[in-house]
């Protein structure tokens, strides 16, 4: 059986893996994080149908897990790639998670007894998780990971609670990073994106004002399984906001930061506004946009519905500054309504920064390892951006999803499939 290495377990990588596994290829799905699922696992709903993201993603994650042709190597990273198309050797570092994956049943007894609480990055740090943890209930594989930075035993040699309570005997503090060499015919890179940190864009006060949050944090907050159980909470009294401002293009379409358009944020904000209204009828959502780029199938209609049925107020203008009333924590968004030519301050209870989606951290390192090129934005460069978008300069190494160029979920899925087709062509020897 021929093997293919898929790097990145987000929706694009999952799609590549399933497409290839379902036609009889063996897949090594390497994921840096403890669970596959990528950013889609963090979303509440998806536009323009408001499908529940986890509901449609989890079956695919489980399918990967249960598939006899797929080996998920989570918490692992690719360190080297030698050889040529059809016969590569990839060296993968399996980071010590201090858990025997074979033995762990994911029961959670250990988590319950772990005394070390740390900010939960999967919930936008809005709540706490333990040092031995499952990122979220639907995580795949369903095995625990010990966070070596924070584990009391690993850092101070004390505690050991998890080991004591684990009836399966899965906790192994002595575990070391290991390396495995994989022989593969082709490689698909689908490492997705990271979120831009708006802290240093002082004008919006992120990190300074309690009620300025990012869209990803909002997404976790509005999600029923998120840290607030789906409640939108504002400082100081955890009331739900009356008015929310969504601010587009924070760090994107910005020659000082990311010049490109992220392609998804306009729709994302519309969706989040609609969700706000579905949760609380009295919320007034405002979307501050530069151009409302509803360019996908059914998107323009979604945008129109957002306005007509959900009362979204679209304001064409990129705000210049947010100020806060220190006592009430309400915010004033200062903006120029570029249609009416009015510079105004809008008082809101919450401001959501739709931050730029930037190349995944470590993309440059991985590009060097794989000997593929980056483009001017730090995304992976296609061999021919017009006619060979999925190919890289290295034959047999393909790219799919956001890491190739900004795109939404269906486009990522399409490319995930497409890269699988290219990998099959190569593995079958038809590479031209």
């Amino acid at each position, binding site marked *: 059986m021929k093997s293919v290495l898929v790097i990145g377990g987000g929706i694009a990588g999952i799609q590549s893996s399933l497409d290839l596994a379902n036609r009889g290829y063996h897949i090594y799905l390497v994921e840096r994080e403890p669970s596959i699922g990528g950013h889609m696992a963090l979303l509440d709903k998806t536009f323009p149908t*408001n*499908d*529940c993201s*986890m*509901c449609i993603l*989890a079956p695919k994650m489980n399918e990967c897990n249960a598939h006899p042709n797929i080996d998920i190597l989570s918490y692992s990273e690719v360190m080297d790639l030698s050889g040529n198309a059809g016969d590569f050797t990839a060296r993968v570092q399996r980071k010590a998670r201090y858990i025997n994956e074979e033995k762990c049943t994911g029961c959670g007894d250990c988590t319950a007894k772990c005394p070390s609480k740390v900010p939960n990055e999967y919930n936008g740090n809005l709540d706490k998780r333990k040092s031995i943890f499952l990122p979220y*209930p*639907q995580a795949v594989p369903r095995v625990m990971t010990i966070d070596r930075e924070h584990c009391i035993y690993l850092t101070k040699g004390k505690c050991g609670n998890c080991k004591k309570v684990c009836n399966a005997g899965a906790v192994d503090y002595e575990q070391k990073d290991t390396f495995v060499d994989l022989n593969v015919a082709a490689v698909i890179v689908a490492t997705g994106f990271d979120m831009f940190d708006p802290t240093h864009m002082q004008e919006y006060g992120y990190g300074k004002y309690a009620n300025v949050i990012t869209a990803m944090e909002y997404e976790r907050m509005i999600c029923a*399984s998120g840290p607030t159980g789906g409640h939108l909470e504002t400082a100081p009294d955890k009331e739900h906001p009356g008015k929310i401002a969504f601010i587009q293009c924070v760090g994107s379409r910005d020659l000082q930061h990311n010049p490109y358009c992220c392609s998804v944020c306009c729709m994302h904000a519309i969706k989040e506004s609609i969700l706000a209204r579905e949760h609380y009828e009295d919320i007034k959502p405002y979307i501050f946009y530069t151009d409302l780029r509803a360019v996908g199938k059914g998107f323009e209609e979604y945008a129109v519905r957002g306005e007509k049925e959900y009362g979204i107020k679209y304001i064409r203008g990129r705000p210049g500054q947010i100020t806060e009333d220190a006592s009430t924590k309400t915010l004033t968004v200062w903006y120029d309504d570029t249609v009416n030519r009015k510079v105004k301050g809008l008082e809101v209870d919450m401001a959501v920064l739709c931050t730029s989606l930037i190349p995944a951290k470590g993309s440059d390192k991985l590009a060097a390892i794989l000997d593929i090129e980056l483009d001017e934005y730090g995304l992976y460069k296609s061999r021919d951006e017009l006619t060979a978008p999925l190919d890289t300069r290295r034959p047999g190494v393909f790219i799919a999803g956001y890491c190739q160029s900004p795109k939404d979920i269906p486009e990522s899925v399409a490319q995930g499939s497409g890269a699988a087709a290219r990998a099959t062509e190569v593995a079958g020897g038809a590479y031209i």
Partner: protein
Amino acid sequence: MTEFSPRIVAFCCNWCSYVGADLAGTSRLKYPDNIRIMRVMCSGQVFPSYILKALELGADGVLVAGCHIGDCHYVSGNKKAQERVETLLRVMKTLGLDPRRVRLEWISASEGMKFASTVKEFVEEIKELGPNLLGVR
């Protein structure tokens, strides 16, 4: 006399509501123990007769739970479920059965909380309605 403890059957679709119930479990959300969940592939698979049969046999309440409209794993099964339950409710009224004993809810895979609160509310409501007089208890 012991307090009335309703017996409730739930039909949960495999893709959303069953997972929502799982999530309630994984999140350790406490809810009343009166409910017994039966897994079906789709809420559209629930014959109206299942519901009536359960009542007939003495169930105090029946919960049918599926994916939100638009989210159905099978495109539109839940819409059919909705039509059918509505029809059944009309029948129940005519039969003199309290339609409040049957509840149709959309519970997604991420709504563990909603699952728990739905059960809680439903049990409370059924407690107010009292035991179902059909069937042998």
